[in-house]
């Protein structure tokens, strides 16, 4: 491989910015300087589809209307555990306007006998059993109501701790073949080991397994904190529910869907229906949120396709809010035991973690890697168990596991600091090796005015103020399967194409920015066509991988296309192409200022109608920590929370959050702030409001709506101030990373620490409600 040596900006401006030399492939574009010296990158660029979104012009999946299209509704179980003895569809079939009914049946592998019965076993309320396609949604719903499912009900278990007991009803009496839905980069939990309803433990992550000797570590400790923390089941609540429109043409299956992974949905549909990938096209132009729950075709995707096949018509199938709560994913609960020891000088000597969580009938209820890696500690071990219950399956949820883990760890560290008589913020200076979080603590503390913080519970009056802090880390993941095509048309138009979708964070806009910066054009000059599997493959919007994975090849492809264009101009001007540049839409010459040509004019020099360049993500400069795409460095954050607690009514209000974050080279300040706002709001909601409430005697969720499932509205949202710390690490041609997940990890922990600071009593369980505050204050007899 031909290489060149280049000097890159390295470090944090205003702190330790310097340079580093890296040897990089010869074809890589020249080094970008820090953001201050760039024109489009790092600026507050309005998202390119903002107007379409706020005016309703943007078309989402549910807006799709195709000629002859039918509307479908799913049939779902209304018992938590049962064998289906029969399903009678005769009445539904005869309803006028019904075109197709499809029931989910066990399909044994070829040559195998079906020993499981005709229909899959029902394991939770809301499990999909079938679907109806009809001329209107109303008819489809009427038809569903006419289907009679006969059940042979079995004992069930909803409560996690009850499920762990010997003699509890068994959720799976067969081996579990499924794997955890961890989004793009979640760990895979092994469902094959364990007893009863308990699976696991997982004891290692891609950062390794246990280290050191815990017994020795705790023997060396002068101070120990030992606690159990609990977190609730939290559903995703994207404003746009899951759904799909399938138009199965003779030679092509068209799938319009709300997805954070067009490529994965395409692959799943191709595999399920035994089609070549080339004959399945998945399109997602606009998306109304996913938060981890929309990586797959689900059961609704194949259902719509089956109904389309049976009816010969396009089929629209969008889920409703209740279905969303019951069956389309959730953040699993957790019960985490944590023991942390430290010497009197604060040095950590041991961290022991043991967790149980339930993702219902799914796996993946661990508490992440945060206790393993956030602070340096020589002795560490974790055991993370999944507990199966008769409830809807969990799914990746904005920093899977780590949000639960942070809630425990960051409270324990706070408690440890207090035992050591150290300020919790300066204690973190002592035990946290991260340079970027150090800067975040400094800048955050200044903006937040951390010096106001008083000893816990020392406030006078009924309403007590409290200040708290929480930290997080999230790996820098890169999906190597990330490609982009850049086209320069001979009319001056520039187009970006990739299957990568914009989950709503502004991916389209940053791609336009990267190309505009490279081509010396404006953002409005770039047309971004993404979210379509007919284009080069892009990453899924999970793991905060998108920016770090797709922007370097985008820049590289634009650079290659530019080179080809400038070669044509150089030929015309009879000069060396290396002397040419494009700036403000003009091609110019480094030394001969007389030579000028507009970009549009330059594109007319092409002999063919377009220049097309495709580039794929390559290894990071300097390589990866792990070859599959675990990059060096991390995405650190420090969040500060200010709360008011009414000690008479138990009412908690989060007044303010200061969120200090890093994501390598920031690309679009406005969009980053917007993501931080979203992450913080979901964190506030997780800490105080949202909670899936299930009746243990019937197995039904009793708040599967937006009335009683409490998400925050305008008055619940605190003042949020963001600090975005630029951190250059010279790892790719853009050196940029995402921020989606980091924004959500530390919030609940910071709030819990602030509540403790306000009232002087620690709450070990979320959501923190008036009831839990009043109980903690011993006011409930």
């Amino acid at each position, binding site marked *: 491989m031909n290489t060149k040596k280049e000097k890159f900006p390295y470090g944090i401006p205003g702190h330790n910015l310097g340079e580093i030399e890296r040897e990089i492939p010869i074809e890589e574009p020249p080094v970008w300087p820090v953001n201050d010296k760039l024109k489009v990158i790092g600026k507050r660029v309005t998202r390119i589809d903002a107007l379409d979104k706020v005016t309703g012009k943007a078309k989402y999946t549910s807006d799709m209307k195709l000629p002859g299209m039918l509307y479908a509704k799913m049939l779902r179980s*209304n018992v938590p555990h049962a064998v289906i003895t029969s399903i009678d569809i005769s009445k539904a079939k005869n309803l006028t306007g019904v075109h197709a009914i499809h029931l989910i049946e066990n399909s044994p592998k070829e040559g195998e006998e079906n020993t499981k019965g005709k229909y899959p076993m029902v394991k939770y*309320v809301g499990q999909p059993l079938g679907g109806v396609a009809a001329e209107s949604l*109303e008819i489809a*719903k*009427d038809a569903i*109501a006419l289907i009679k499912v006969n059940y042979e009900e079995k004992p069930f278990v909803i409560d996690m701790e009850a499920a762990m007991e010997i003699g509890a009803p068994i959720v799976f009496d067969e081996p579990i073949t499924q794997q955890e839905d961890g989004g793009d980069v979640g760990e895979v939990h092994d469902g094959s080991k364990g007893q009863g309803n308990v699976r696991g433990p997982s004891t290692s992550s891609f950062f390794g397994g246990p280290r050191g000797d815990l017994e020795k570590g705790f023997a060396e400790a002068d101070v120990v904190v030992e606690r159990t923390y609990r977190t609730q089941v939290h559903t995703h609540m994207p404003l746009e529910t899951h759904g799909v429109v399938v138009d199965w043409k003779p030679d092509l299956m068209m799938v319009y869907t709300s997805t954070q992974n067009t490529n994965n949905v395409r692959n799943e549909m191709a595999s399920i229906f035994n089609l070549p990938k080339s004959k399945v096209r998945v399109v997602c132009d606009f998306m109304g949120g996913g938060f981890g729950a929309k990586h797959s075709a689900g059961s609704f995707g194949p259902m719509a396709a089956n109904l389309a096949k049976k009816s010969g018509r396009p089929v629209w199938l969008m889920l409703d809010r209740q279905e969303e709560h019951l069956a389309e994913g959730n953040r699993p609960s957790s019960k985490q035991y944590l023991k942390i020891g430290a010497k009197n000088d604060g040095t950590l000597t041991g961290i022991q973690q043991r967790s149980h969580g339930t993702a219902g009938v799914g796996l993946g209820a661990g508490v992440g890697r945060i206790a393993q890696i956030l602070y340096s500690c020589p002795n560490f071990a974790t055991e993370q168990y999944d507990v199966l219950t008769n409830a809807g399956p969990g799914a990746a949820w904005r920093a899977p596991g780590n949000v639960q883990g942070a809630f425990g760890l960051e409270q324990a560290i706070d408690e440890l600091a207090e035992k050591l008589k150290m300020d919790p913020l300066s204690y973190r200076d002592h035990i946290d090796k991260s340079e970027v979080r150090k800067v975040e603590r400094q800048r955050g503390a200044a903006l937040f005015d951390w010096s106001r913080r008083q000893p816990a519970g020392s406030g006078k009056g009924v309403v007590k103020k409290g200040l708290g802090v929480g930290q997080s880390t999230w790996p820098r993941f890169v999906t190597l399967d990330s490609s982009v095509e850049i086209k320069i048309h001979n009319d001056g138009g520039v187009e970006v194409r990739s299957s990568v979708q914009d989950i709503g964070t502004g991916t389209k806009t940053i791609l336009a920015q990267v190309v505009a910066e490279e081509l010396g054009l404006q953002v409005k000059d770039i047309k971004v066509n993404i979210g379509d599997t007919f284009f080069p493959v892009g990453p899924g919007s999970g793991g905060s991988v998108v920016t770090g994975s797709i922007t370097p090849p985008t820049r590289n492809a634009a650079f290659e296309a530019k080179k080809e264009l400038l070669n044509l101009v150089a030929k015309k001007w009879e000069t060396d192409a290396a002397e040419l540049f494009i700036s403000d839409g003009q091609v110019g010459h480094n030394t001969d200022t007389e030579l000028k040509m507009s970009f549009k004019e330059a594109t007319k020099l092409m002999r063919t109608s377009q220049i097309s360049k495709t580039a794929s993500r390559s290894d990071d400069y300097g390589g990866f920590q792990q070859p599959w795409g675990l990059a060096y460095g991390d995405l650190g954050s420090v969040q500060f929370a200010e709360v008011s607690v009414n000690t*008479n*009514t*138990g*009412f908690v*209000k989060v007044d303010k959050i200061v969120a200090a974050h890093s994501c390598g080279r920031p690309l679009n300040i406005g969009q980053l702030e917007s993501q931080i706002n979203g992450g913080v709001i979901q964190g506030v909601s997780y800490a105080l*409001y949202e909670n899936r*409430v*299930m*009746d*243990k*005697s*019937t197995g*039904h969720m*009793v*708040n599967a709506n937006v*009335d*009683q499932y*409490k998400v*925050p*509205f*305008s*008055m*619940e949202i605190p003042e949020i101030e963001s600090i975005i710390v630029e951190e250059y690490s010279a790892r790719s041609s853009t050196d940029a990373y995402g921020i989606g997940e980091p924004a959500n990890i530390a919030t609940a922990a910071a709030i819990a620490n602030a509540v403790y600071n306000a009232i002087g009593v620690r709450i070990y369980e979320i959501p923190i*409600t*008036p*009831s839990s505050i*009043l*109980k903690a204050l011993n*006011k*409930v*007899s």
Partner: protein
Amino acid sequence: MNKFSWYEAKSVEDALQQVNSTVSEELYQHTNKATVFKSGGIDVFDWVKEGLLQPEKIVNIRNIPGLDKISYDQKKGLSIGSNVTLEEIASNPEIKNNYLALHQAVNHASTPQLRNISTLGGNIAQHNRCWYFRSVDHQCRRKGGDRCFARHSETGENENHAIIDNSSCVSVHASSISTALMAFNASVVIINSEGEKKIVSMDDFFVSPAKDIGMENILTAKELITEIILPAPSKNSRSAYIKEVARESYDWSLADVAVVVEVSGNTCRKASIVLGAAAPVPYRSLEAQQAIENKIINNDNAVAAAKAAMAIAKPLAKNGYKVPMFTSIIEQAILQTT
């Protein structure tokens, strides 16, 4: 949602000719042949959308002329037509000046969008929000079943439920505006299909489930609320309303209280204290009233009244927090009247 026919009522008489059931009756009996009223439609359509109510016909009473007036007279008091929207009440200056607690309660109810649509008649006649009652999968006693799921000491999810008079159904009434109306000794004017008019005090309007599990108020099928009337406030009367919620933007009450007092100097001569979200119907706390009447309104006496109100509370497994919460807001509301 089932298919139903729609009837646009032209007058009260016309509407009463059409109707054949209350929503409560139909929820209890499931005839699927009911013709029911709809005004703002907020509550009734929730039931229809959930599939719990499958009416044959809906009679729209929203456009009946004459039911949408607010009138206030210093001597006669206040009359609010049943079709007056919550927003109209919230923005009425005479209500703010003379019935402060009502103004506060209406402003804290629901959301601005819903206040634009909801009518007062519908608000006081709405049904409770117990999530089992509202679930098609739980056949509770209010719907003709034989169980109260919420009451169960181990599995009942009863954090939002009643702490007083909870020996039958443990739901709490959903109208926090009724808390204030009852404290102002409001009455409900009801007309029946014979054209007879009756005036029922709010205290008698609501029906405790212990008395009749199938009803939340005294309305029968062939009856319609036309107005809600409030006596003129005495010169020395003062009022306050406080509501505690999980979310301030929009939420159902966890605990609310309305206090109306008549004072001479600092002394409370007469007190009307009503608790919302404490019992299956708005609960007049005679205990608190007695404790504060003829006493100086001060901190100690307010605390004593609040404690007296809560002395009879019998919380369920998950709603014990309501006792200190009520204690606090009753005390505060009493003190706010000084």
